[in-house]
């Protein structure tokens, strides 16, 4: 009976979101205050009923209700409780429900934190989001209902959750990524509301900035978690594979990053307005494309959830309606937009424009590489495979240029910056960065590598430019420490995130250049060395877990003859699905990771295994952590709230006609 409640709640949520998608928007067009005021209660209703759906599905998992098809396919009586709950997003139907629930959560947040925005604007934003929610829910009801039953012959036990997904990073990665994806729908809704109302001033940019920053934070976190999960769970020692399903979040991230910066220019200077709107639409399109690629089976990949053309057709139709519709709206409304100010060829505007161009070109080339095999097949009927060499050859130089521009951006001034000023500020920075980039790797590794030199120089360039800019801000103050703490959160957050970029560059460069790996077959007692490290294999022992059995190896690691620690990689067989899985053992450190994955055991007791040394690999995720903290800091800036109040006051004074002098 309980799953049917979920089904009812889903249908009710659909009805409410259809109302939400229509009444408030029509109300806003006709200036009907009652219809507009329905937006907030309807939003709350959608959220409540989708929460009910989620709780019901969770209940079905926890109580092992295998009469529910989705539970039977993704759970098992032996599955530990926490994985039963996270199995909700372990498959197509459930993860779509979760995705839609998150959209309703963002909608609720918008309806709560928009008290100071004009009602017609709020009605339009929530209406657009309601339209998206209606589309997603209809998709679930029509093609992928998580509450579908297998009655009367319910299976006695479930097929189990894919073993690679039984892991802490998997508990966190999809929700974080979805939050980011869905967050960009909010910015999209703001842009569409602005287009609909025809009020494309700087105000909509200011209202959407905190939302864009928060969506970006989630997406950054989601990508980093995904890469971390791939790194230690899949056991091939990689952290990014240019997989067709990894690419759409990256495309969205690149477009979202461009959007964040373009919103800043639009808000502060009133230029790039139509471009910013277009970026908001594109970032949203990126997030939908991600859904389409994962859910349609269009591209074959490790992530592919479901291959079903009807699902693909539905999502494609939805994309055509939303993205196509908004691009038509854009084409009709954008010519009306007027820029409010001008700028000279060397100014912060231009550096931010450079940033935007580079990011969008990067996003376009990743998109091209992802879709090209399919497009090629559609045209010529031949197969082709595009691998990391293409992506690296295009992406890396673009990002290097971006980092060069990134050094100039924050230090330059709005409207006009003199070359003399830039030279004075940054000449020493550039010299010091290149000098350290050449000398440091040379001294430490005793060999010259151009890639490493460029990477390290870029990182130092960024760090020194940030330091210089922060120093400029506090140099003339009496108490510099206090002045530093008094800098606006927006500014500090930006510099923190930029610093994260530098940290990540170091990680990526050094890991890519200095990693070592060796595949070997070792008999118990045998040892092998890799770099400075020595790995001794001391045999395996059988182990039994809650829902798996396997072998655990003991490997003694020593460095230059000195014992460091034991590593215990495992090879597991998950009982319910009879699928093997390898659990690598990692010795992680600030400057390097060591890890071992077990391959196959032989009759003789010998095991094949792969050993890795990965210098500075943690810095990749450390950089992402800085970016996330920086992004949160900017979104929390008090300025947005103050300005909201100011906007509100201004509107109220505009509405009320000037009071006539009272006659006594």
């Amino acid at each position, binding site marked *: 009976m309980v799953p049917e409640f979920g089904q009812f709640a889903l249908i009710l949520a659909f009805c409410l979101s259809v109302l939400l998608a229509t009444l408030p928007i029509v109300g806003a067009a006709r200036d009907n205050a009652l219809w507009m005021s329905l937006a907030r209660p309807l939003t709350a209703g959608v959220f409540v009923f989708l929460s009910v759906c989620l709780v019901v599905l969770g209940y079905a998992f926890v109580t092992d209700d295998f009469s529910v098809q989705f539970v039977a396919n993704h759970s098992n009586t032996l599955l530990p409780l926490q994985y039963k709950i996270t199995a909700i997003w372990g498959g197509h139907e459930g993860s779509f429900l979760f995705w839609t629930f998150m959209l309703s959560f963002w909608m609720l947040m918008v309806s709560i934190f928009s008290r100071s925005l004009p009602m017609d604007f709020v009605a339009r934003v929530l209406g657009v989001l309601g339209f998206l929610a209606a589309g997603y829910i209809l998709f679930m009801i029509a093609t992928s209902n998580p509450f579908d039953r297998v009655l009367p012959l319910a299976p006695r036990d479930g097929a189990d959750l894919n073993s690679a997904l039984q892991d802490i990073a998997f508990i966190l990665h999809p929700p974080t990524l979805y939050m980011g994806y869905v967050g960009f729908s909010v910015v999209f809704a703001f842009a569409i509301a602005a287009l609909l109302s025809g009020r494309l001033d700087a105000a909509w940019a200011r209202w959407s900035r905190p939302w864009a920053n928060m969506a970006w934070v989630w997406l950054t976190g989601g990508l980093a978690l995904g890469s971390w999960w791939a790194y230690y769970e899949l056991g091939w020692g990689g952290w990014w594979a240019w997989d067709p399903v990894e690419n759409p979040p990256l495309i969205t991230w690149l477009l979202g990053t461009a959007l964040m910066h373009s919103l800043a220019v639009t808000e502060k200077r009133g230029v790039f307005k139509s471009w910013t709107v277009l970026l908001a639409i594109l970032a949203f399109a990126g997030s939908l494309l991600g859904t389409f690629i994962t859910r349609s089976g269009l591209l074959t990949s490790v992530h592919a959830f479901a291959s079903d053309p009807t699902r693909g057709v539905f999502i494609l139709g939805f994309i055509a309606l939303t993205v*196509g519709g908004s691009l038509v709206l854009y084409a009709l409304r954008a010519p009306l937009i007027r820029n409010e100010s001008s700028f000279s060829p060397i100014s912060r505007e231009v550096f931010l424009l450079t940033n935007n161009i580079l990011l969008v070109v990067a996003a376009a080339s990743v998109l091209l590489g992802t879709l090209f095999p399919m497009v090629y097949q*559609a045209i010529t009927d031949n197969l082709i495979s595009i691998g990391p060499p293409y992506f690296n050859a295009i992406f890396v130089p673009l990002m290097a240029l971006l980092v060069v521009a990134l050094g100039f951006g924050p230090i330059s001034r709005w409207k006009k910056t003199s070359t003399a000023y830039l030279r004075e500020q940054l000449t020493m920075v550039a010299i010091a960065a290149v000098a350290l980039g050449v000398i440091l790797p040379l001294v430490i590794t005793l060999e010259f590598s151009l890639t490493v030199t460029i990477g390290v120089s870029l990182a130092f360039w960024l760090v020194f430019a940030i330091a210089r800019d922060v120093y400029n801000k506090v140099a003339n103050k009496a108490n510099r420490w206090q002045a530093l703490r008094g800098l606006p959160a927006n500014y500090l957050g930006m510099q923190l995130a930029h610093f994260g970029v530098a940290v990540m560059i170091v990680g990526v460069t050094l890991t890519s250049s200095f990693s070592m790996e060796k595949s070997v077959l070792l008999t118990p007692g045998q040892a092998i060395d890799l770099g400075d490290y020595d790995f001794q294999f001391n045999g395996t022992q059988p182990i039994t877990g809650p829902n798996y059995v396997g072998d655990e190896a003991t490997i003694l690691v020593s460095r230059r003859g000195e014992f460091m620690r034991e590593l215990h990689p495992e090879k597991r*067989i998950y009982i319910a699905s009879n699928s093997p899985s390898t659990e690598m053992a990692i010795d992680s450190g600030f400057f390097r990771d060591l890890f071992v994955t077990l391959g196959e055991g032989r009759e003789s007791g010998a095991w094949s295994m792969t050993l890795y040394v990965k210098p500075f690999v943690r810095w990749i995720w450390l950089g992402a952590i800085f970016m996330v903290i920086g992004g949160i800091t900017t979104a929390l800036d008090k300025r947005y709230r103050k300005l909201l109040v100011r906007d509100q006051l201004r509107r109220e004074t505009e509405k009320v006609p000037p009071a006539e002098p009272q006659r006594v």
Partner: protein
Amino acid sequence: MQRLKFFVPIAVFLILGVLLWRGLYLETTELPSVLINKPLPEFELENVYDNQLVAKEDLPEGPFLLNVWGSYCLPCLAEHPTFMRLSENEVIPIVGINYKDQQDAALDWLETNGDPFAFSIMDHDGRLGIDLGVYGAPETFLIDSNGVIRYRHVSVLDEQAWQNIFVPAIEELESEES
């Protein structure tokens, strides 16, 4: 003219949309494999009949076919007559990989349907399958005399696929080697 440039995004989007829509209906069973032109991975697995260990060295001197099958696999029955014909006429040796199967069930299946394989090895845990990048049974690999994977066929290998794909591919191999 000024206004027209704002229609560029929607135009690009429409082209992309048509391509994506076409893409949905493409044949995606034919997968480019990263293992093409790479040597077979090392393995050591048991023979399905006598549990004797079989390693890479025990495989026939190519060219030969490596067929992934299972007793649970219905499409495998569809391609079975082709393999029976190939083995009866001694066209090419075929080695079976009994993929994620139970030994009893596999032996029953061979008993009932006939055994076209030189021998079958049991990949009970699917480990060799992982190394080969197998998606599921049936799949067939063409291996040359150097033990290098030359072609991967996903799904049923019927007479049509044999004539259209494998015959030319094997002819090419033979002309290369002679």
